[in-house]
C-alpha cells in the first residue's frame, strides 16, 4: 500500500469491516451445516479477541508520546469511533436496554445523560485540554494550579472513579466470556483481563486507539442487527427507530390487560418481575429524580479521565473538537437504538398476537422453550406458577435485567449466529472501556505519581516499564475485586460518574473558564466535593435513607455543589494566581499555535 498507516486508515478499516462481515457469513453457513450454538459462540468470541490482540501487538511502541497520546496523529472520525467504544461499556451495551425494559421512562435518564454530556465535553473541556498538551488529566490540574498536592488529589479522584468503573467492566467481560466459552465466571474474569492486557500493554494509547476503532465496528453491528431483524419480523420496517411509536401504544394497551404492576407473590434471588409501566413519567419527585440522574451522568461524562484523554490524541485543537462531534454521532447510533430494542423485546414477550409471546400461555409450553431452559439453568430466568392456574402471569415471569440484550436474539427466535454476534459485541464493549480505564489509571500513576512526583529524573525506558507493570498490577486487582461480584454493572458505573463529577468537574471547568481560580481553591474543590459525595454515599448506602430522594446512584448532586462553593469561596479568600499562570490560561484559550506544555514534559 502507498502512503503511511494514517493515510490508509479508511482502506484498512474498510477491509476489516468486510472481513468481519465475511466471518459472520461463514458462521451462518456453518450453522446451516449443523454446527451447534456453543461452538459458534466460542468461535465468535475467540476470533474477535484474537484480532484485537493482533492489533495490540502490531501497535507496540517504546516512545513516550506514542504510549501516552498515540503520537497525537489520530484523525477525528477515527478518534470519534475509538471514543465511542471507549465510552460504551458493558453497562451501555448489555445493561441499558434491560434497565429501560424494567424501569421504563425513568431509565431513559441514562440515555439523555450519556449523550448530552458530550455538549459539556465539547463546550467546556476537550479543545482546551488538547491545546494545553497534557498527557493525563491530573497533568492539567497539576500544571494549571501548580504543586504536587493538587496533582496528587486529582490522581486520587481519578483512581477511585476509574477503578470503580473498571471492576464493573471486568465483571462484564467475565460474564460474557463465561457464557460464550463455557467456563466458570471466576476463570472468565481472568480470561477477560488477559484479552484486555493484550490490547493495551505493549502499545499503550496507540494500541488502545486502534483496537477501540475495531471494537466499535463490531459492537455497533452487533447491537443494530438484532433490532432491525426483530423490527422486520414485527412489521415496523427496516429502520424501526422512527416507527416504533405504535409499539409503545400497543404496550400501553396491553399493560392493564396483563396486570403489569402487580408485585410478585414470591421472591427469587437475582431475578425480578416486570412491575413498572413502560411509559409513565411522573411529576414532582419522579421528574426531580430524572433530572438529577441526568445531571450526574452529564457532568460525570465531562470529568471522566479515560474519555477526556482520548481528545489528547488528535493532531490539532480543531480536530479535537471535530472528534467530539463524531464521538457523539457514533454513540448516538447505539443510544437511540437501545429504547427501540427494549420496546420491541417487551412487545415480543407480551403481545399475544406474536408467536414469541409467553405471557398468558401455559406454564408447560413456556418451560419447553429453549431459551427459557438455557437461561433458567444459569439462574437468570425463572418461571413460577404462584397462583397455580397453570398459566404464566406477568408477575410469575422472573428475569435478570442484564440479560435482555444478550437473550433478545433467542427470545425473538433469531438464528444462533446472531447470538454469537451479540456476545462478541458485548465483549468488545466491555473490553474497550476496560482498556481505556486501565490505561487512564496506569498513566496517571506512572506519569503523575511516579515521574512527576517521585522520580522526575527517570528516563523514558524506565517510565514506560513502570507504566506497564502498573497496568498489569491494577488489572489484576480489578479482576480480583470483580470476581467477588460485589455490585451490579449499572450501579457501579453510576458510582464512577458521581465520584468523577464530585471531585473533578469544577476544578477542570474553572481551570479554563475562571482565571481567578487558584491552587487553594482547586484543592478545596476536589477534597470537599469528593469528600462530601463519598460521605453521602456511605450514609445513604449503609442506612438506606435518602435526602430529597437523592439515592446512591446520584450522589454527585451532593458532591458537585459542595465542590463549586468550596472552590469559589477559598479561591476568593486567597491571593489570585500569578501573572504567569494567568498568561497560561490565555494561551490555553487560544486555539492556534503549539501546545502550552512542551512535548517532552
Amino acid at each position, binding site marked *: 500500500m502507498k502512503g503511511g498507516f494514517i493515510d490508509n486508515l479508511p482502506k484498512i478499516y474498510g477491509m476489516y469491516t468486510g472481513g468481519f462481515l465475511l466471518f459472520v457469513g461463514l458462521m451462518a453457513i456453518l450453522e446451516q451445516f449443523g454446527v451447534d450454538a456453543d461452538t459458534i459462540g466460542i468461535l465468535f468470541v475467540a476470533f474477535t479477541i484474537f484480532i484485537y490482540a493482533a492489533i495490540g501487538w502490531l501497535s507496540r511502541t517504546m516512545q513516550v508520546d506514542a504510549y501516552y497520546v498515540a503520537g497525537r496523529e489520530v484523525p477525528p472520525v477515527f478518534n470519534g469511533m475509538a471514543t465511542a467504544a471507549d465510552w460504551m461499556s458493558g453497562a451501555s451495551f448489555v445493561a441499558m436496554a434491560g434497565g429501560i425494559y424494567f424501569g421504563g*421512562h425513568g431509565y431513559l435518564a441514562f440515555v439523555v445523560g450519556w*449523550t448530552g454530556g458530550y455538549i459539556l465535553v465539547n*463546550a467546556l473541556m476537550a479543545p482546551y485540554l488538547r491545546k494545553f498538551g497534557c498527557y493525563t488529566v491530573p497533568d492539567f490540574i497539576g500544571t494549571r494550579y501548580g504543586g504536587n498536592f493538587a496533582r496528587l488529589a486529582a490522581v486520587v479522584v481519578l483512581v477511585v472513579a476509574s477503578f470503580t468503573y473498571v471492576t464493573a467492566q471486568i465483571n462484564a467481560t467475565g460474564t460474557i466470556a463465561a457464557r460464550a466459552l463455557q467456563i466458570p465466571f471466576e476463570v472468565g474474569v481472568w480470561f477477560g483481563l488477559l484479552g484486555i492486557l493484550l490490547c493495551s500493554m505493549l502499545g499503550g494509547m496507540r494500541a488502545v486507539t486502534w483496537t477501540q476503532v475495531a471494537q466499535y465496528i463490531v459492537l455497533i453491528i452487533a447491537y443494530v442487527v438484532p433490532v432491525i431483524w426483530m423490527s422486520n419480523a414485527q412489521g415496523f420496517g427496516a429502520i424501526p427507530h422512527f*416507527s416504533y411509536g405504535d409499539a409503545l*401504544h400497543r404496550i400501553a394497551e396491553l399493560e392493564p390487560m396483563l396486570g403489569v404492576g402487580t408485585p410478585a407473590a414470591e421472591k427469587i434471588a437475582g431475578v425480578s418481575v416486570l412491575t413498572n409501566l413502560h411509559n409513565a413519567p411522573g411529576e414532582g419527585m419522579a421528574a426531580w429524580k*430524572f433530572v438529577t440522574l441526568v445531571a450526574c451522568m452529564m457532568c460525570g461524562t465531562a470529568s471522566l479521565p479515560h474519555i477526556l484523554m482520548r481528545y489528547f490524541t488528535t493532531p490539532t485543537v480543531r480536530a479535537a*473538537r471535530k472528534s467530539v462531534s463524531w464521538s*457523539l454521532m457514533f454513540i*448516538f447510533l447505539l443510544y437511540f437504538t437501545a429504547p427501540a430494542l427494549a420496546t420491541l423485546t417487551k412487545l415480543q414477550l407480551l403481545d399475544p398476537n406474536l408467536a414469541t409471546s409467553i405471557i398468558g400461555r401455559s406454564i408447560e409450553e413456556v418451560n419447553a422453550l429453549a431459551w427459557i431452559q438455557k437461561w433458567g439453568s444459569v439462574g437468570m430466568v425463572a418461571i413460577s406458577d404462584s397462583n397455580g392456574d397453570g398459566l404464566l402471569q406477568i408477575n410469575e415471569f422472573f428475569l435478570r435485567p442484564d440479560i435482555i440484550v444478550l437473550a433478545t436474539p433467542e427470545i425473538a427466535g433469531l438464528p444462533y449466529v446472531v447470538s454469537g454476534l451479540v456476545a462478541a459485541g458485548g465483549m468488545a464493549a466491555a473490553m474497550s472501556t476496560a482498556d481505556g480505564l486501565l490505561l487512564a489509571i496506569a498513566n496517571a500513576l506512572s506519569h503523575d505519581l511516579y515521574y512527576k512526583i517521585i522520580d522526575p529524573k527517570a528516563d523514558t525506558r524506565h517510565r514506560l516499564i513502570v507504566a506497564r507493570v502498573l497496568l498489569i498490577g491494577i488489572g489484576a486487582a480489578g479482576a480480583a475485586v470483580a470476581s467477588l461480584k460485589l455490585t451490579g454493572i449499572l450501579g457501579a458505573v453510576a458510582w464512577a460518574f458521581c465520584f468523577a463529577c464530585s471531585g473533578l468537574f469544577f476544578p477542570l471547568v474553572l481551570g479554563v473558564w475562571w482565571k481567578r481560580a487558584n491552587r487553594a481553591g482547586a484543592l478545596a474543590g476536589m477534597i470537599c466535593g469528593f469528600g462530601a459525595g463519598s460521605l453521602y454515599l456511605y450514609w445513604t448506602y449503609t442506612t438506606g435513607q435518602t435526602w430529597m430522594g437523592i439515592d446512591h446512584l446520584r450522589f454527585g448532586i451532593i458532591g458537585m455543589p459542595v465542590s463549586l462553593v468550596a472552590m469559589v469561596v477559598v479561591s476568593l479568600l486567597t491571593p489570585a494566581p500569578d501573572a504567569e499562570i494567568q498568561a497560561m490560561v490565555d494561551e490555553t*484559550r487560544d486555539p492556534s499555535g503549539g501546545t502550552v506544555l512542551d512535548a517532552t514534559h
Partner: protein
Amino acid sequence: MSQDKSEARARHWVKTRNLTYVVLVLWFIFSFVVHWFAKGLNEMNFMGFPLGYYMAAQGSLIVFVVIIFVQNWLQDRIDDECGFGEN
C-alpha cells in the same frame, strides 16, 4: 506578545464565550426543562410517539448531535475570523 495579538485574543474569547453561553442554554433546555414536563408532553403525539417519551428516547439526542456540529462549525468560523485558524 504584541498589542495586536492580545487584542485579537480578547475579541476571540468574547465571541467564543458568547457562543458557549448560547450552547449551554440550549443544552439546559433539552437536558432538563423538556424532561421535567414529560408527563404533560406525553399527551401530545409526534410521529406516532407520545412526545414526552420521544424527547427522552430520541428527540433530545438528535438535538444534541445537531448542536455539537453547528457549534463546531460556528467556532471554526470564529477562529478563522480572528486569525486563529490553525492548519
